[in-house]
C-alpha cells in the first residue's frame, strides 16, 4: 500500500514542480486557495479515520506508558503519572533483552531471510517453469497466505506438536521423534511463519520481475553472462526498490506477529518464544498492568519506525 502511495506522492510533486517555481503573490487569490482546499477534500475521510483509529490509540499508548494504569486493582481507579518508571523497569527486566533477542531472531529468520529469499527464489523459478507447474506451485504457496491467521496457526501447531504430522512423517522414515515445540520452539515458529508469509514476497517479486524488460537480460546473455551473473548484475539491481519495499512490509508485519506465536507455543515453553508482542500482551492483559504493557508496545512502535525510516531512506537513495 505505502509504496503505491509514495509513488503517487512523488508523481504529484513532479507535476506541481513548475507551479511552485513560478513567481506567485504572497497570498494567493481566494479562488486558488479554495481550489486547493477542495482538492484536499477527498483525502479528508481517510485522514480523519487515520487520526481517530490510528493516531488516537498511538497517542493514548504514549500517554498510558507514562502511567501506572491497570486493568483492575487500585491503579485502575486512579492511574497516576509515573514518568519514565515503566521504561526504567523495562530496562532492568531480565525478560526484556531476552524478548528483544527472540523478536530479532524471529524477524531476521522468518522475514528477512526466509520469506524474502524464498519468495524471490520461487518467483525466479516460476518465471521459467511451465504454466501448469507454476500454477500448481503458486496455488500451494498462496494457500497458506489466504488462510486466516488463526487457522494457519492451528495448522502449524498440528504439524509441529509431539504427535503431529511432522513427527509422524519422520517416524515413517525411521527417524527419532523430536518434540519441536518443546526443544526448538523458535525454529518451529520461524518455519511456520516462512510457510505462512512467503506468498506475499513471492507475489511482490513476480510483479517486479515481470517489469524487467526481457531484451536487457537477452542482451546480457548474448554478451556471455551466465545465470548467476545475470541475476546479480541485471535482475537484482533492476528490482532493488521492490526488494526494499518488500523488506519493509514483511519486517513490519513480522514484528507485530501475535496470533501465530500465541496459538502455536503461547510464548513457551518457559518463555522460550516470548517475543515482544507476547510479552506486551502478558503484561497488559494477563497481569493487568496496562501501563507497562503499553510501554512495551511503544518500544515496538519505535523499533518499527526505525526500520521503516531505514528502508525508506534505502528507497530514496536508489531513486537518485
Amino acid at each position, binding site marked *: 500500500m505505502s509504496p503505491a502511495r509514495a509513488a503517487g506522492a512523488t508523481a504529484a510533486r513532479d507535476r506541481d514542480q513548475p507551479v511552485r517555481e513560478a513567481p506567485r503573490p504572497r497570498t494567493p487569490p481566494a479562488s486558488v486557495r479554495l481550489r486547493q482546499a477542495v482538492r*484536499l477534500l477527498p483525502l479528508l475521510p481517510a485522514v480523519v479515520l487515520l487520526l481517530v483509529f490510528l493516531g488516537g490509540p498511538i497517542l493514548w499508548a504514549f500517554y498510558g506508558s507514562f502511567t501506572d494504569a491497570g486493568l483492575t486493582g487500585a491503579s485502575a481507579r486512579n492511574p497516576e503519572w509515573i514518568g519514565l518508571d515503566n521504561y526504567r523497569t523495562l530496562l532492568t527486566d531480565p525478560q526484556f533483552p531476552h524478548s528483544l533477542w527472540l523478536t530479532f531472531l524471529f524477524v531476521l529468520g522468518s522475514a528477512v531471510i526466509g520469506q524474502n529469499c524464498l519468495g524471490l527464489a520461487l518467483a525466479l523459478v516460476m518465471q521459467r517453469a511451465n504454466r501448469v507447474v507454476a500454477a500448481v506451485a503458486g496455488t500451494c504457496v498462496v494457500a497458506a497466505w489466504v488462510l486466516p491467521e488463526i487457522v494457519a496457526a492451528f495448522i502449524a501447531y498440528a504439524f509441529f506438536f509431539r504427535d503431529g504430522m511432522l513427527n509422524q512423517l519422520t517416524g515413517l522414515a525411521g527417524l527419532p521423534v523430536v518434540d519441536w515445540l518443546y526443544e526448538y520452539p523458535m525454529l518451529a515458529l520461524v518455519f511456520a511463519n516462512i510457510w505462512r508469509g512467503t506468498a506475499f514476497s513471492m507475489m511482490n517479486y513476480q510483479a517486479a520481475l515481470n517489469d524487467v524488460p526481457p531484451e536487457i537480460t537477452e542482451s546480457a546473455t548474448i554478451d556471455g553472462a551466465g545465470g548467476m551473473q545475470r541475476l546479480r548484475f541485471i535482475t537484482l539491481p533492476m528490482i532493488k526498490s521492490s526488494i526494499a519495499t518488500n523488506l519493509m512490509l514483511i519486517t513490519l508485519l513480522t514484528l507485530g506477529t501475535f496470533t501465530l506465536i500465541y496459538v502455536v507455543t503461547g510464548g513457551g515453553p*518457559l518463555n522460550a518464544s516470548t517475543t515482544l508482542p507476547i510479552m506486551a500482551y502478558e503484561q497488559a492483559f494477563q497481569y493487568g498492568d496496562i501501563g507497562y504493557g503499553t510501554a512495551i508496545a511503544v518500544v515496538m512502535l519505535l523499533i518499527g519506525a526505525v526500520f521503516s525510516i531505514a528502508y525508506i531512506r534505502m528507497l530514496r537513495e536508489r531513486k537518485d
Partner: protein
Amino acid sequence: MRGIKKTFMAVTVVGLALTGCSGDSGGEDSQTLLIAYKKADPVLESLMENTKEQFEAANEGITVELSPIEGNDDDYATKLALSQRSPDTAPDVFVEDSFKLRADVDAGYVLALDEYLADWEDWDAFNETAKEAGTGDDGGIYAVPLEADTRVIWYNQNVLGAAGIELPWQPQNWEDLLEMARTVKAANPDVVPFSMYAGTMQSFYELLYGTEDGALYDEDEQKWVVGSQGFIDSLDFLKTIYDEGLAVTPAQALDPNIWQEIVGDMLPQDRMGATVEGSYAPQFWQEGADYEWPEYGEVMATSPFPTQNGQEPGAVSMSGGWTLAVGAGSENPELAVDFVKMAMNFDNSLAYTVDASKIAVRNDVAETTEYQEMNPFAKEVTEVLEVSRYRPATADFAEIDTAVLTATQEVVAGGKSPEEAAADYDEALKQIVGEDNVIEK
C-alpha cells in the same frame, strides 16, 4: 499554504467531534438490570436465563438484560474490566472469578455486600470455606459464591491393584505417594505412576499448603512469604517425581494440552496410576462428555491429598470457582442483590450445581440425595472442602502466580535446583510487590 492547513485542521476537528459524540448511550436506567457472565458454559447460561424469567415475574416493570461475554477466562476478565471502567457499560450483576475478585475490589468495581446479606436467611446455609471465595482483603463480603471446586488425588484402581498396592489406597504423607509411585513403576515400567502438572493449582499449591510453614501470603501480617522451606520442599517433591520418571516427561508437563491426554487416554487406558485433578473430573467422563468413559465410576477412586508429614489437618486441597458480585456503580443495588439472592436460592443453586458437577456452596444443597448421587464421587470431593484453601488472589496475584509457575517449570524442565528456583521466585516476588511487602519465614 497556511490557509489550507487551517481548513484542514478545522475539518479534521469537526470530524473528530462528530465521531467522538456517537458513543453517548444515555446511561443506564434504574428499571433495567444488566447481568454479565461468560458465555461458554451452557449450565451457567440456563441459570441466568431461568433467574431472569423468575425475577421479571416477581418484580413487575423491571427488565433484566443478559449480557453473555464470549471468550476464555482471560478474555472474559479483560472485557469485564473494560466494561466496568465506564458507568454506561458497567454491569449491575456479574459473574466474577474468585481469582480476580480482590483486584476488582481494589479497583472499586465491586459493591460491599455485608449489609445487604445481613438479613438474608439463606446466607447461613452457605459453607464457611466457600464464603472465603467472596471475601475481600478487609474481611468484608464482596461476592456470593456460585460454586466451588476442590482438588483430590484420582487414582486408577486397575493400575494400583496390579502393582499390589492395597486398596483403597489412602496416602498419609508425601512419602506414601512416592512409595506407591515407585512400586507401580517397578511392577510396570510402561505406565506413568503418579503425575502432577508442572503447574500451580493442581500441583504446587497442593504441596505448599501441606507443609509446616506453607503459604504464599501471611494473612495476619498482610505480607508475602519469602525464603520458606516449604516452598523448597514442594519444588523438591516435584523434582523427585520428574527426575525419577514417575510423572509424565518434562516436555509433556509443559504442554498446556496435556490434561486432555491424561483424562482422555492415559487414565481410561490404564496407562497412568494417579494424578491430582479437580473435583469436576467426572464432568470429563460422564455420559455425553468429551472423554466419555462408562466405567470410570468403578475404575477410578479418590483420596484427599496428604500433608507433607501427615500433620494436621492431614489433608489439603485448593479451591477456586465463580462468584456473583454486584457492581459498585449500580443504580439499583437493592434490586441487583435481590437478583443474586434469587439466582442462589435453594432450587436454582441445586439445579446449577448438579448440572455443572460442581461442589455445592450451600450445605442444604450438599445434603440432598440428588446432589450426592450426581456422580459416584460427589460426597468424597465435597468433604474435602473442609480443609480446602483459596488462593490469596490480591491485585498482584496473577503475576505472582506466573512467578510460581515459572519456578515449578524451571525445576521440572529447566534444570534448576529447588533452591535456585525458590531464590529466583523470591527475587521476582520482591519486584512485583516491593521489598516492604514481603516477610521472611
